[in-house]
């Protein structure tokens, strides 16, 4: 197993799966402005996926393309965080998932802009601009809906209680992370935690929401050892054309 390939798949698969989830909202958002904003975020994330997975395919050296990796791997080969494969649920869950992801993604990309791997640093430099906007938007939305009406507050609190156990996975190191950190390719995940917790707490307090006390974190997504049942259904839809017509070029 090539650690850099694994790492690149973790970045690219997370943006791919979250981009896909967000794109499920197209044309169905609660307000027209969100019908414009959500596809924009999905578009950024899929664009980042193209860069991460193209590089992953090069590092892999098996003659694959970014599309091959996206469309022809099965569940156990995906390396995305469990958080991003959670179903959209209501708008509160979608926004909370986005916020918990962005609050990690932004500092992660900021750190990667100084990666010892020049190509990773370049991808991060481009993606960090988009992630900055994503974080601003999702944190504003969490504040507004948390602080909005009784109903919007209750929905946001339920979403947070539901999704918080999926936030911690990004901050738990394994051998891939150790190797990336040892070669200064990427930061050690744990080093991002304190700032993450502080920024999440700040936003949640402005949103009048309560951070769940439990620190339990589900894991198995970024290692690929145990995804949720949801990912297979997502891939069934996303990969269908490529698998049904394997000889076709699109």
């Amino acid at each position, binding site marked *: 197993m090539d650690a850099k390939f694994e790492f690149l798949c973790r970045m690219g698969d997370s943006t791919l799966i979250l981009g896909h989830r967000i794109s499920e909202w197209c044309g169905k958002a609660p307000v027209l*402005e969100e*019908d414009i904003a959500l*596809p924009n975020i999905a578009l950024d994330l*899929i664009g980042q996926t193209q860069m991460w997975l193209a590089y992953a395919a090069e590092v892999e050296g098996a003659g694959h393309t970014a599309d091959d990796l996206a469309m022809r791997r099965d569940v156990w080969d995906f390396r995305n965080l469990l958080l991003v494969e959670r179903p959209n649920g209501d708008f509160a869950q979608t926004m909370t998932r986005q916020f918990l992801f962005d609050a990690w993604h932004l500092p992660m990309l900021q750190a990667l802009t100084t990666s010892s791997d020049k190509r990773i640093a370049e991808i991060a430099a481009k993606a960090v601009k988009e992630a900055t906007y994503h974080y601003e938007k999702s944190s504003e939305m969490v504040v507004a809906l948390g602080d909005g009406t009784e109903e919007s507050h209750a929905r946001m609190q339920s979403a947070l209680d539901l999704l918080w156990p999926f936030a911690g996975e990004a901050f738990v190191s394994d051998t891939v992370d150790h190797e990336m950190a040892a070669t200064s390719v990427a930061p050690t995940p744990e080093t991002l935690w304190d700032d993450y917790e502080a920024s999440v707490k700040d936003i949640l307090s402005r949103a009048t929401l309560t951070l769940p006390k439990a620190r339990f974190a589900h894991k198995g997504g970024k290692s690929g050892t145990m995804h949720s049942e949801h990912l297979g259904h997502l891939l069934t839809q996303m990969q269908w054309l490529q698998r049904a017509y394997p000889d076709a*070029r699109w």
Partner: protein
Amino acid sequence: MYAQMIKSEATQDDPEKLAAFQARIDAGDTIEPKDWMPEGYRKTLIRQIGQHAHSEIVGQLPEGNWITRAPTLERKTILLAKVQDEAGHGLYLYCAAETLGVSRDELTEMLLDGRMKYSSIFNYPTLTWADMGAVGWLVDGAAIMNQVPLQRTSYGPYARAMVRICKEESFHQRQGFDIMMKMANGTAAQRRMAQDALNRFWYPSLMMFGPSDQDSVHSAQSMKWRIKMNSNDELRQKFVDQTAPQAAFLGLTVPDPDLCWNEEKGGYDFSQPDWDEFFDVLRGNGPCNTERLAEQNRAWDEGKWVREGLMAHAAKKNAQPIAAE
């Protein structure tokens, strides 16, 4: 078109003002929101711009249907960008309509309870990936026929919205044609999808222009006001003349055995669509009317708490400085 069968409103204004207004239109002036305008002009425009906006909104659904199944990452990004553009077009158009004294929420309510319509074309299903090509090539192609001249329409906000929309629509049409090229030059299965998409979308695209309006008093009034620029038949002819050679280039067969070049008129002869089907679709009996409206209503109803939450937060924020004083 994105606005079909628009009835012009009778106008009972002061004849002198009416004459002066008509003189401005005839001189090529642009009418702006604060200018005097006949009540009929205002109401007709609200109906036309509103229907156009609704078409952009509902038009997200048949293409949104394929975003999660787009075959490559690049195709997914292109389709996302396109559907996002449509939402943006809806927004410009609602803003243009708002300058005439109707709110976006009022227009939305009228769409949702069926008082206002959207283009018949969006009541047809998108069944294969080739439909993403056919929608861009044919549906956006037909829309452009009408929207390009509307950049010169008499109502300023509408004309300006149309300038932005046209830029994006021509990109949409090109990407649709690009999908058709890939499909038409692809595997046997892809060619079959491409031909099937053309078969299903040809006549509904011709219907977009609406039935012949050469004897319609409504069209005559709208043309006089320069909010309709060409007759439905003129635009349909132009569309067929542009599209038939493109189909031939793709190696696809237009599903009309009577389609042939007429040297004398310098255009194609072609068969009319089934107008009974068109009126059925307008009455709500198209293949997807029920689903499209139900989807819009569901999104609106389920989004109510979000809109209320955002408004409540904004109100609290606005109240803060006053409370601090």
